[in-house]
Structures are given as structure tokens and as C-alpha cells.
């Protein structure tokens, strides 16, 4: 139990140092844009592919169960749009970024720790948090927000096509139903969720990377732990944020 408290304390220490570095030290602009390109552009097609199938499953499953219970699936377009905007878009994007970007960050920082590059940075008077974490934090946060908007749009578009082709609801019917159910603030809340998820991923990945133990299994273990803890944190944060946003309706 003491170890858990110590780990939580270490993580909070890292958060505190990161916030201080973020506001007090100069930003590595070029590195930040390179990371943003890696996060956003590099993950775009994976996210588009996955959210399309998530939309298909959402529409078909909703229709099947609504028909089963109330013998009518007319509410599916509106209900699915709401589900996509409030949950699916942001959460699926964040979970995919965790496995693609978060794992990469943990492995990269962990390797640097094992090969003493982090110590070398400190010896040269460079703060590893400012050098490594801050550009990744900004890039992943912005990237996650941008990808979340794209994922929401693609997901709704895919849902609209499936509704048209399989359920027989034309795009105009879909948009009318969506207009009745969905509000603009749903999209805003979705982007706010993406912002928190985007901050969580590099923080947790760098935390495990910085405390990586030596050897190949050390890097492997840091990577696995970072993906597991980031995924759990995203699900937990989603609950907290959804609960908080429910007060605004």
C-alpha cells in the first residue's frame, strides 16, 4: 500500500513540475510541431478506420435492441448521434492514441532512461521534463482535440450512411433526428473530454518512461504499464467528466 501512495505522490510531483515548466520555461516549438504531426497526421487513418466500424456497430446494435424492446427503431439516428458525440468520438480516439502514441512515448523515454540519455540531459543542464514531456504534452493534447472533432464527424457520417443503406432512414431524416437530439455543447464537451484525455496520455507515458528499469524487459514493462494505466485513467476520467457535464443539461 505504501508503494501505491509513493507512486501516486511521484506522479503528482511530475504533474506539478510539468505545470511549472509549461509556464516558466521556453517551448521547443519545432519539436512540438513535429510531435503534433506524428500524433495527428500519423494517427488519422487508424482513427477514421476504427470510428467508422464503431458507428456501424452502434447503429446496428441500437436498431436491433430498440426493435426488440419497443418494436420501433425510429429514434436510432438521434440516439446514435448523441452517443457518438458524447462518448464514442472522444473515448475511441483517446484509447487508440494511447496504444499508438502513448506506447511510443513510454518506449522512447524508457529507452532514453536505460541508455542514460536522461542523465546526460541533466548533466548538460537541460530539464528532461521541458525537453521531452512538454512538447509531447502539447502535441498530444492538441492532436487529441483535433482528432476528436474529425472522429466525431466521420463517425456521424458513417452512421448516416448505414442508417440510409440498412435501416432506410434517408440523410435528411437522420439529420432531422440528430438536430432534435444533439446540441452544439455536446461537441464542445466532447472536445473538452479529448483535451483531458490528451493531457493524460503523455503524462502517464512519460511517468513510466522516466522510472523505467534497465534492460529490454524494463522498457517493455514501462510500455505495457503506461498503456494499461492510461487506458484505465481515460475510462475513469470519462466517467468523472460525463458526470460533471450532466449538471449542464
Amino acid at each position, binding site marked *: 500500500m505504501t508503494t501505491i501512495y509513493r507512486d501516486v505522490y511521484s506522479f503528482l510531483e511530475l504533474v506539478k513540475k510539468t505545470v511549472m515548466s509549461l509556464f516558466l520555461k521556453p517551448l521547443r516549438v519545432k519539436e512540438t510541431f513535429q510531435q503534433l504531426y506524428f500524433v495527428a497526421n500519423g494517427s488519422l487513418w487508424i482513427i477514421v478506420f476504427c470510428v467508422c466500424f464503431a458507428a456501424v456497430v452502434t447503429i446496428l446494435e441500437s436498431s436491433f435492441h430498440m426493435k426488440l424492446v419497443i418494436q420501433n427503431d425510429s429514434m436510432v439516428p438521434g440516439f446514435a448521434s448523441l452517443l457518438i458525440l458524447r462518448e464514442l468520438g472522444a473515448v475511441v480516439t483517446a484509447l487508440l492514441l494511447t496504444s499508438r502514441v502513448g506506447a511510443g512515448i513510454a518506449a522512447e523515454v524508457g529507452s532514453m532512461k536505460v*541508455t*542514460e*540519455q536522461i*542523465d546526460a540531459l*541533466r*548533466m*548538460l*543542464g537541460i530539464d528532461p521534463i521541458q525537453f521531452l514531456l512538454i512538447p509531447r504534452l502539447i502535441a498530444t493534447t492538441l492532436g487529441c482535440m483535433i482528432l476528436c472533432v474529425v472522429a466525431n464527424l466521420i463517425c456521424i457520417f458513417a452512421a448516416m450512411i448505414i442508417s440510409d443503406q440498412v435501416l432506410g432512414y434517408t440523410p435528411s431524416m437522420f439529420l432531422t433526428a440528430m438536430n432534435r437530439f444533439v446540441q452544439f455543447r455536446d461537441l464542445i464537451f466532447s472536445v473538452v473530454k479529448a483535451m483531458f484525455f490528451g493531457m493524460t496520455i503523455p503524462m502517464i507515458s512519460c511517468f513510466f518512461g522516466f522510472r523505467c528499469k534497465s534492460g529490454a524487459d524494463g522498457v517493455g514493462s514501462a510500455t505495457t504499464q503506461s498503456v494499461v494505466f492510461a487506458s484505465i485513467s481515460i475510462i475513469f476520467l470519462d466517467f468523472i467528466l460525463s458526470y460533471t457535464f450532466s449538471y449542464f443539461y
Partner: protein
Amino acid sequence: MLEYRNLVKKFGERTILKGINLKINQGEIVFILGTSGTGKSVLLKNTVGLLKPDAGEIWIDGEEVAGFSEFEFLKIRKKCGMVFQHPALFDSLTIYENIAFGLRKHFSLSESEISSRVNRALKLVNIHDINDKRPAEISYGMQKRVSLARTVALEPKVLLFDEPTTGLDPVTTNAINELIKDLSRTLKTTSLVVSHDMPCALSIADRIVVFDQGQIVDQGTPQELLNSKVKLVQEFLAEAKEMLDHDSNVIRGTTS
């Protein structure tokens, strides 16, 4: 120049350094020998604040630094350069940028001054024409030399070497050992070298300190160590003799 007083370092329940007392004079080349896991590298990392001691004092150039913050250690890291066991070069930077990196951070130098210090450091380690290459494009031995050049470029008063010849072939090992000697003589730096290489320690060290289980078990000049009664030292000497005999037999062609 450098002094440790009752230095203690623990990792959890395990005590790695058990009250180290050691004084190193200016310009001295001191080798720290010992088996793996006896706290040799931990001592070096405590010296420059990469690890924090649990008790004791570290004096560098008349200043007690054990309680220094990360910010306060910046000036100590200008004085004390460290060459790591791994080359620890930054993969995304060229060789030139790797060496210039610390100069830009620690000093306010013009680009021409940085260029001249980078080239001088590379010349000291006998490396030419690789300024624009990246670490992955050069051999491990060359990476080690570049790592040395990066530290030397800062012109530190104290050089700390953490197993500088581990994983290198005998030719490069000899070259690195000669470099340590030459650098200490030409730049008048104090050198603290963690190593397993007894023949090298006997040939270039002013003093050899032997560690065992977090404590100093023997120390003295190479000549004094040859007559040591400490079992670990005798084992190191026997190993060194065996290596030298083997090498000379290989040269004579009597052993494959």
C-alpha cells in the same frame, strides 16, 4: 578538490554505499575498482546530483554539495563532466549538435566559438569528418569517443568516467585509456574512473581505490596495490596477470 565524508546511499532497504570516506586531490587520476553492484557508479552519480545521498557530505572545490537542489547543481555540472557507461548521445541530433548542445546551455558563446570548441574536442579524441553524421551512423567505439568529446568540450575541472571501456574491443579500449591519461595531463583535470580494467588502472592511475559491498576495502598507488593483502585485490591482480599472459601468448602465437 573532491571529497566524500561518510557518504551513505540506500535503495529501499538495501544500503549501496556504507559510509564512504575518500579524498581526491587536484589533477589526480583515481581508479575505482570493484565487482559489479558494489556502488561505484552510484558514487559518481551522487557526485553530480543525479542521485541524492541519504547521509554524508560531498565536497567539490570547497563547497558542500550533497544538499544542493537541481538548479544549484547546474554550476557543479559545469565543473564536473561525466562520461557515462553508455555513449548516451541524442539520436535526433548530429554529432556536432550533440557536442554543441551542452555548450549552448552552459555558456553564452558565439556560434564561431562553439564551432571551434566542438572541433577542438573532436580533435582531442582523434575523430574527424563526422560532424554531420548521426550517432546511429557511427560505430559504438566512435560513439564512446564522441561522448567523451561532449564532456571535454565543456572544459570541466573534474572528469568522472563510468566504465568508459566496457563493451569495446582491446584496440579502442587502449585508445580510450590513453585518452583519459592525455586529457588529464593536458587539461590538468582531476579524473575519477570507475572500471573493471586492472591492467589499465595499474598503468595510468595515480591511485587505485577498491570497493567491495559499498565500502572501500583498500587503496593506494599501483605499486602499493601490487603488495596488497586484501583478497579481492589479489583476485583482481591474478585476473590481470592472466589476461596479460594470455595476450602475450597470443602475440607469440602459442595460444589461439
